[in-house]
């Protein structure tokens, strides 16, 4: 019998690095977004969820447009940009620029941000490390998912999509344990509509139900 590949929990943390670029208004945001590094675009979109922010927005551009420029419609348009829908960072950058251009066409003179409230373009250095926790079956996975740090949930649920196009959890459940149904349920969790802790809760509940069903099937 083929041995099951255990799920190895890892985490990632990000060290914020400044690019030195900032924008005081939407025109400057457009100008700098066009030239800033791909790493910076990546940070302000994909890594938004690592910051534990309020879920009114889905990326830093939308957050700044809503909170600092108070351009609500623009922030709604920007929040609708799904970074996972693009093949690469350059396509994502183009979409952000399109949204900003569309808005500037209709509202050519948006307000300035207050001093100190400018948009600061950052990048990150990412450090990953194993947590020393491996799960060989559903029950072990269930316990681990309850107690690992939020940085591990982030790594396997969000960061994995950039690496693999899918989260690590559902991939392992399907590939190694042949649990298609629960894998599908995890894939059904909308990454934009939950905090990392809520993601943890949904995954836990899905796995717990599966473990219960398994136990009932063997008469426990």
């Amino acid at each position: 019998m083929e041995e099951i590949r255990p799920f190895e929990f890892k985490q990632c943390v990000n060290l914020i690095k400044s690019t030195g670029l900032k924008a005081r208004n939407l025109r400057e945001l457009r100008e700098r977004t066009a030239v800033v590094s791909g790493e910076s675009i990546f940070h302000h979109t994909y890594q938004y969820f690592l910051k534990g922010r309020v879920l009114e927005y889905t990326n830093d551009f939308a957050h700044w447009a809503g909170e600092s420029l108070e351009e609500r419609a623009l922030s709604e348009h920007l929040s609708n940009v799904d970074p996972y829908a693009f093949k690469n960072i350059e396509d994502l950058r183009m979409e952000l620029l399109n949204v900003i251009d569309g808005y500037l066409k209709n509202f050519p003179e948006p307000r300035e941000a207050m001093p100190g409230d400018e948009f600061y373009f950052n990048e990150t250095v990412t450090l990953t490390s194993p947590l020393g926790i491996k799960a060989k079956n559903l029950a072990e996975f269930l316990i681990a998912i309850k107690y690992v740090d939020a940085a591990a949930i982030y790594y396997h649920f969000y960061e994995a999509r950039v690496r693999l196009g899918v989260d690590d959890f559902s991939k392992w459940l399907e590939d190694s344990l042949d649990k298609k149904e629960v894998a599908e349920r995890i894939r059904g969790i909308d990454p934009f509509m939950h905090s990392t802790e809520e993601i943890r809760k949904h995954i836990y509940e899905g796995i717990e139900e599966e473990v219960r069903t398994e136990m009932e099937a063997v008469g426990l």
Partner: protein
Amino acid sequence: MISQYSGISPKGDLILLERLGEKLKGKSFLHINSTRAGGGVAEILQRMVPILVELGIDARWEVIEGDERFFDVTKKIHNAVQGNPEKITEDMWRHHYEINKKNAERINLDADAVLIHDPQPSPLIEFRKRGRWIWRCHIDVSHPVKEVCDYLLRYCRRYDAAVFSVAKFARAMGVDEFIIPPSIDPVSEKNREMSPDEINKTLDRFQIPADRPMLLQVSRFDRFKDPIGVIKAYRMVKKYNDCILVLAGSPATDDPEGEAVLKEVREFAADDPDIHILLLPPFSDRDINALQRAATIVIQKSLKEGFGLTVSEAMWKGKPVIGGAAGGIPLQIIHGATGFLVHSVEGLAFRIRQFLNNPEMVQRMGENGREHVRNNFLITRQIRDYLSVWYYLENKRALIEL
């Protein structure tokens, strides 16, 4: 020592610290600042250096020495960098350099990594022997006096990297610039757990009643902390909800305006028996801890702020915080999740009333705040970040697997 943090700091941070410790084992890490005691930098270094040593790193902490004139000059530089109009003459800069030169002869600067804290010892880069040199700026440099900043940048540009507390403090310097927020120490006297008895002792000593909700602001009596605005908001709230207000702060001895502000605050509070103005001596950490734990809501209505770590201190004690949207406060308060950011006296009064009428919200936001601090503002995260910067400089890769 590091075991003190297990069960408190995120497990992942402790694991990462161990890994970084293994990678940097036996290497030397020198910290240099300008004071052994007093101030946040010395406080953090006192705790951080023993932890680094425990991780297997040969960590040292040295303090530069100088005459009265040197510290007068560095105080002026400090103020100018923070935006106060100051003129630093060529002669003053020369003295700044000469004193650093003398220190370079006295201090062994040979290390694998050197972290220089703040502008006072920044010219030491001129005497670099080897290793990675990092300049750590703890102060608000968002609106500096240009000439002073430009002069300092001559030194700072020669470092391998610079570290700022908040993104808006960073400037395009042409070196790697990292954003590392400051942190609180959860096992220190100011933040450790306290028994109800200990808390009550402090309240009794200051004659603060515990029978009504308590609003608290801990800060120096400084116009930028808007204590008058806090009293105005309390008065607006008082029409609807019974509560008491405690304004606690150390006397600002180096601030000539401190005395005048305190007088204004006392006059404005008039004879309201429910306003308690406490003048705490320096090193009142235990009392501050007790007051923060006794409070129902903590306020930090700053108009201008460096980082405002009192916000994290209060959130660590499970208190919801209402803060002015200044300096590092918006990094700590996630509006609507761990507290509220306000922009006016009226906004503050409204949020206080919202909390006083919704104990469930007070509890929920307090709990969120504690988790936010656990994940972002504890000393273990700050050490992790310093070691990460050092390790990055050794490897120069955007993705590092440990």
